[in-house]
């Protein structure tokens, strides 16, 4: 079998297996048409935020969902990516492609160092050491007064050659292309030899060791890849927000990323993106809904959002992707569902 046809078979199999993800991507491509005719330009902004957080969550999902490494500090990589833009511009580097390259290299190196040190521990200790590194970086950027410290720094959208990012649609599709490429990349990584090994390590690490492989190498590689994806999301995030502050790497954002993944479905390609859609749509719509019912409490929407998260955990297993799959299964084979329950 020639390389190309092998590649094409893999790609078409991947498309089929991850139909939901590519449907969502297609939906995002068509969404601006809808907002144009419905005259809702604000929702383009929401969609960009969804894609960016979804991209970061997909990066984290590689270690969290496929690799079983619960990193509680991935917001740090988003922050590093975003500061690559801010600090780059501060020193006169205005080319967006250079920012992306810088973000990837810096996040890769940081991921390598943090991963190497943190992966000596496991379980709750790993959760906490990743948090510790993220907090260190958070306070580092708080302390860097020349880059705005606590208040952050404002950013001009970078120059991407012919792509003028001040045209909102071009920014939208730059993010969209990046998201689709990340999805495509992850699809291949997960099904590659490397990805299979990573997933095998999650289910039985000592067995992989017994097979003569070094689990740590695979884990660190996975950690670096996920850091790079979060860094890319960070670079684009800074361009979208036109502003960066240490807030972008606050520990609650790391928590948010985890929630998005768990909400959508761990270890699936579509899960993090679906989770981001639901998470951010709830964030946008709960205040609106509350505004119509009890206007005085519109800004207290989290009082509903919190219990909603708890209910997701208590009653829905496997996240939204799991829920959808279960529904499809019960439609195809209603009896089996009953027996299973």
């Amino acid at each position, binding site marked *: 079998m020639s390389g190309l046809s092998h590649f094409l078979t893999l790609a078409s199999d991947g498309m089929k297996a991850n139909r939901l993800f590519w449907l969502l991507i297609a939906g995002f491509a068509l969404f601006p048409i809808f907002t144009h005719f419905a005259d809702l330009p604000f929702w383009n902004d929401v969609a960009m935020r969804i894609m960016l957080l979804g991209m970061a969550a997909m990066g984290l999902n590689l270690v969290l969902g496929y690799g079983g490494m619960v990193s509680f500090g991935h917001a740090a990589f988003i922050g590093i990516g975003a500061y690559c833009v801010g600090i780059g511009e501060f020193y006169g580097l205005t080319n967006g492609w250079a920012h992306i390259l810088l973000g990837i290299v810096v996040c890769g190196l940081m991921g390598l160092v943090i991963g190497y040190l943190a992966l000596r521990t496991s379980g709750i200790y790993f959760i906490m050491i990743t948090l510790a590194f993220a907090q260190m970086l958070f306070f580092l950027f708080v302390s860097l007064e020349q880059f705005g*410290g606590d208040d952050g720094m404002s950013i001009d959208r970078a120059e991407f050659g012919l792509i003028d990012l001040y045209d909102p649609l071009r920014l939208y599709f730059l993010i969209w292309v990046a998201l689709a490429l990340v999805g495509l990349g992850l699809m291949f990584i997960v099904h590659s030899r490397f990805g299979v090994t990573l997933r095998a390590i999650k289910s039985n690490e000592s067995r992989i060791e017994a097979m003569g492989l070094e689990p740590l190498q695979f884990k660190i590689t996975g950690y670096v890849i996920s850091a790079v994806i979060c860094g890319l999301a960070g670079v684009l995030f800074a361009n979208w927000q036109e502003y960066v502050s240490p807030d972008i790497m606050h520990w609650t954002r790391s928590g948010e990323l985890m929630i998005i993944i768990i909400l959508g479905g761990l270890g699936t390609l579509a899960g993090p993106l679906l989770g981001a859609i639901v998470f951010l749509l709830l964030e946008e719509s709960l205040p609106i809904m509350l505004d119509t019912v009890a206007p005085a409490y519109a800004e207290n929407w989290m009082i509903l959002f919190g219990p909603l998260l708890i209910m997701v955990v208590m009653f829905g297993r496997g996240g939204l992707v799991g829920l959808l799959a279960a529904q499809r299964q019960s439609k195809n084979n209603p009896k089996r569902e009953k027996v299973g329950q």
Partner: protein
Amino acid sequence: MTFTLILEQTFNGLQAGVTLFLVAAGLTLILGIMDFVFLAHGSQVMIGAYAAAAITQATGNFYLGILLAVPVTFASGYLLEYLIIRHLYQRDHMEQVLATFGLILFFNEAIRVSFGPAALFSDLPPSLSGFVEILPATPYPAYRLGVIIVGLLCAVGIHLLVSRTRIGAMVRAGANNPEMTAALGINIKILFRFIFATGACLAGVAGMMLGPLTAVQPGMGEPLLILSLVVIIIGGIGSVRGAFVAAIIVGLVDTLGRVFLPAILRLFVEQATADGAGPALASMLVYILMAVVLIFRPTGLFPAKG
């Protein structure tokens, strides 16, 4: 930089340390012994602080406020365990993170709705607002000294409870092997509920004592939650002794770093930069400490389980 200043700041560090220990001790019971990732522990601190502040305002008596707030926090912990937490023991850590993150959002917002977003300030009674001479000509705020003493008493109490009493033996047995303990006729469900409520209560006490020192406001517990997580990791998960040692270390490092790091930095860089960077670098110190401990001792200073 005088000896008095160093002494005073060391006491402040101790005060921060024992407060941190109360939060971390509760978390040690819940996370270390029951193996439940409880992120909403900071909310228990907030609930304690609000209960004390509200009762103090209503009754006009600070001591009554503290006295009545203790059972309130115990009851809130008990109720929370009964309603939600007990359904989540069997779930994996990530689901526990998600559910208890939801609890944080709920508690912060519920407090904001019922008490308003502004911070509450509670005044100290005259009997506690004075100074005590810890050394000749070295006055120290009486209230902070009181916090240190109460914190140390609680530490001794928890130590005795866990290591010397029948309940403590049951707790340790339950942590070691819940099925076996249950088979020996101990009601593990009630035991866990009791531990959980005690842990929540300890966090609440920390909140009550912090009330007059800091602003009582929604979300006040989260920084403490993160720091107390750091503490139990440095100390070794599940070890009360480790939590105590680590809490004192973290309290001292954080407080002394905040005061003296800008001064040390000023020797090397200009003053404005040093004053700006100092406090943030001091906050970093704690996490650097934790990372170093974990790199050299991946299960903390006093690992409780093998």
